[in-house]
């Protein structure tokens, strides 16, 4: 479904991603794990079209998208829930969802019911200004907003960041539900143990390069990963 080959990304003169290759097949949950600054978010931004690679190829559903603008990719079924949620803080919950449905003809009742089913809290707060939501609710809104575009592949950047453990569990169980409902997921996480529990496969990223790959289980039990990311 998504295939990235030998991708190089620069911030000005800084070589941030140094020849990364990975793929996500339909129906999988794939995790990218790695420390702060390894380049995880940059990879997602480049795939979603907010940035463009200097060289290498990215194909999504058989089409080359390395130089396609982000707003066009949403229509192809690619959704990106960015780091820090980036919901529209000055707009209401409903308006945020309406923006999520921007590529659809209308904000359909069925879609709203679907996200309110997943996140009943948002239904209670639909007329509230998004900036007044708690961190967990903001994450729920960010995911709901992305779901409104009917994504085939959903990329989640640090969905557990800054959340209380009980909320982290809840978010991960929803990720599993979405996956069961047929959405393919590419997950970027610093919380490696959680990510490896849900992931079919995972890649370990270090300073712009992939250093390890394997199934979630394999990596969870690999010595290198345990030492570096799982606290021994």
């Amino acid at each position: 479904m998504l295939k990235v080959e030998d991708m190089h990304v620069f911030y000005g003169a800084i070589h941030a991603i140094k020849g990364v290759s990975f793929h996500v097949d339909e129906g999988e949950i794939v995790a990218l794990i790695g420390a702060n600054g390894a380049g995880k978010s940059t990879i997602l931004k480049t795939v979603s079209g907010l940035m463009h690679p200097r060289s290498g190829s990215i194909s999504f559903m058989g089409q080359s998208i390395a130089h396609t603008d982000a707003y066009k990719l949403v229509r192809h079924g690619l959704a990106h829930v960015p780091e820090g949620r980036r919901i529209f803080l000055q707009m209401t919950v409903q308006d945020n969802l309406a923006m999520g449905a921007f590529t659809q003809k209308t904000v359909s009742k069925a879609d709203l019911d679907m996200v309110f089913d997943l996140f009943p809290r948002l239904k209670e707060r639909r007329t509230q200004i998004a900036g007044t939501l708690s961190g967990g609710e903001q994450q729920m809104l960010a995911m709901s907003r992305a779901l409104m575009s009917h994504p085939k592949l959903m990329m989640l950047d640090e969905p557990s960041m800054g959340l209380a453990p009980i909320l982290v569990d809840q978010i991960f169980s929803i990720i599993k539900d979405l996956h069961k409902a047929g959405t393919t997921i590419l997950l970027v996480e610093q919380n490696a143990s959680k990510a490896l529990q849900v992931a079919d496969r995972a890649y370990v990223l270090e300073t712009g390069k992939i250093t390890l790959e394997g199934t979630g289980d394999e990596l969870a039990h690999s010595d290198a990963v345990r030492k570096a990311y799982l606290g021994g």
Partner: protein
Amino acid sequence: MDFLQYFIDGLYIGAIYAIIALGYTMVYGIAKMLNFAHGDVIMVGAYMSYTFVSASGMPVYLSIPIAMVICTVLGIVIEGLAYKPLRGTSSLAVLITAIGVSYFLQNAAQLIWGPAEIGFNRLVNAKPFLLFDGKLRVSPEAMVTLAIAVVIMVALTTFVNRTQTGKAMRAVAEDRDAAQLMGINVNRTISITFAIGSALAAVAGVLLCSKVQSVSPTVGSMPGIRAFTAAVFGGIGSIPGAMLGGMLLGLIETLTGAFISTQFSDAIVFLILIIVLLVKPAGLLGKQVQEKV
């Protein structure tokens, strides 16, 4: 009675400032740039109205839609040619370009219509209403101008809050990257913003020149700067703020001119602006932006 007379005069010029300020504030809020050429689009709108009125003898109000269409196209062209290539570069580069566009428009107007002031027909040719035995004069044109300003503000507010395109504008204003991830074409949204701002400038141009009964290549400069001040005063980026700022600026300017000193009226206007910004840095109705980490 004098006070009431000046108050009405202040509202009249204030309404024109408000319409100009609405254009400034929309472009600033969404494209995050100060379009210093906005005042000169006003001037182009006024000349267009003048040209069609003098060529065909049509009444001034019929020339407004024509001027709006031409200025809309002009706004989109200016944005596409001058500002779009600079997207993502420093805001200083864009600001200097805007000043360049401003001079370009003024000089082009001089070339086409000459540097001298030209007489401009009134929008409404009716006798003023005389109240209180003729002590209070209310011109029908002032009332029309005020009504147009209010209608524009209500229409803009409804557009921005209710329509999908309007909401997309707010989304782009708040977070350009996140807006793109929703499937919103940011460049197109910014073009639409310029189109709306320039159409408003055309309306303001006709109203302004009808008030002063003349048009010249620099007719938009000072009102443009004053309206920019009004937009900052009310809270730049805020639609009701631009309206309030424009009205207040018109009132302060007229009342200080009448009762304190004409020479100091600009100084007093800016003194009040400084005080407002010291107390409320985001302007009267501006949102205090808080970064949530």
